[in-house]
């Protein structure tokens, strides 16, 4: 519904949902901020869809190099997936703790999220380093170029997310659960959950579908 004030009773129920609302004025800042961040996340997902499209087109173009099934290790991917999934859960716990102003559970949830994110990054970094050491770097074939750019872009997002997570802990430590800090925490939680959604696409399309080719 409208984020601006509407005048008159006729516009109070624009979708005819039987819920007449007298608009008190502009929406609260928490809603506006989170909505703007939601739009950013959707545009980020659109950007990822371009990388997914490139991977889908180029996954067969191995130029004599390795195929997906020869270089992917399902066990590592499963561990990475569980790490990200659990970190999404602990991030949710941390945001609940932030809403009820409970410092202990907030720090604990954020710390566990951070550790799980770092484990994910370490496994991914090892995988990349191993591939490059075997001569299967991004310049080997179009398939590997698209693989490294898609998975690497997600990894960069997770790295940025871990940095953001640490700054959120520092902000709560220094400023407490102020309204602006809580808004940032909310945006961070949205970001972290969105990264998990993108990872669902990555492990399904890249590792499981691409590994069976």
């Amino acid at each position, binding site marked *: *519904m409208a*984020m601006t004030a509407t005048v008159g009773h006729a516009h109070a129920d624009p*979708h005819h*949902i039987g819920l007449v*609302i007298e*608009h*008190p004025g502009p*929406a*609260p*800042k*928490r*809603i*506006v*901020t*989170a*909505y703007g*961040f*939601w*739009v950013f996340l*959707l*545009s980020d*997902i*659109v950007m990822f*869809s*371009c990388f*997914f*499209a490139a991977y*889908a*087109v180029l996954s067969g173009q191995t130029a004599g190099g390795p195929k997906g099934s020869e270089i992917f290790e*399902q066990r590592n991917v*499963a561990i990475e*997936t*569980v790490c990200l*999934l*659990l970190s*999404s*859960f602990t991030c*949710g*716990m941390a945001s*609940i703790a932030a809403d*009820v102003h409970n410092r202990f559970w907030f720090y604990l949830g954020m710390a566990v999220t951070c550790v799980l994110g770092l484990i994910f990054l370490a496994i991914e970094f090892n995988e990349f380093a191993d591939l490059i050491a075997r001569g299967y770097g991004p310049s080997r074939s179009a398939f590997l170029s698209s693989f490294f750019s898609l998975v690497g872009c997600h990894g960069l997002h997770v790295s940025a997310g871990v940095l953001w997570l640490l700054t959120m802990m520092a902000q709560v430590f220094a400023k407490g*659960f*102020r*309204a*602006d800090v*809580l808004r940032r925490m*909310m945006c961070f939680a*949205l970001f972290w*959950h969105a990264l*998990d*959604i993108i990872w*669902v*696409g990555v*492990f*399904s*399309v890249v590792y*499981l*579908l691409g*590994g*069976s080719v």
Partner: protein
Amino acid sequence: MSDQAHVPASHDLAPGDEEQHSVGARIVGYVVGLALALLLTATSFFIAGTDLVWQPSIPVALIVLAIAQMGVHLVFFLHITTGPDNTNNVLALAFGLLVVFLVVGGTVWIMGHLNANMPPMDQIMKTRM
């Protein structure tokens, strides 16, 4: 814009915000989401490696499972619902999905046809020489 900590939203919900629930109910929501997501993930990994099912169905099954899991994440973690207080969030999501499907679907469709209609690379190289 007012700058209050947590305004009980009377008519709109921010993405990620839930309707007013107790802490216990919110935790249960996350636990249910985590259980469903783990179940779907385990199924995906099992399907990908098994020969119990008809092999050509595996890619479709993986895509369906992935979309289902994304839905679980949206509902239980991002709290995007179909409620009237979520209209803005759902409309933005719908537009985002439209663009995603246009980009991915259109690319796969067009590039697949171009690839099928292109002569093999070694023939192109021969005609150049």
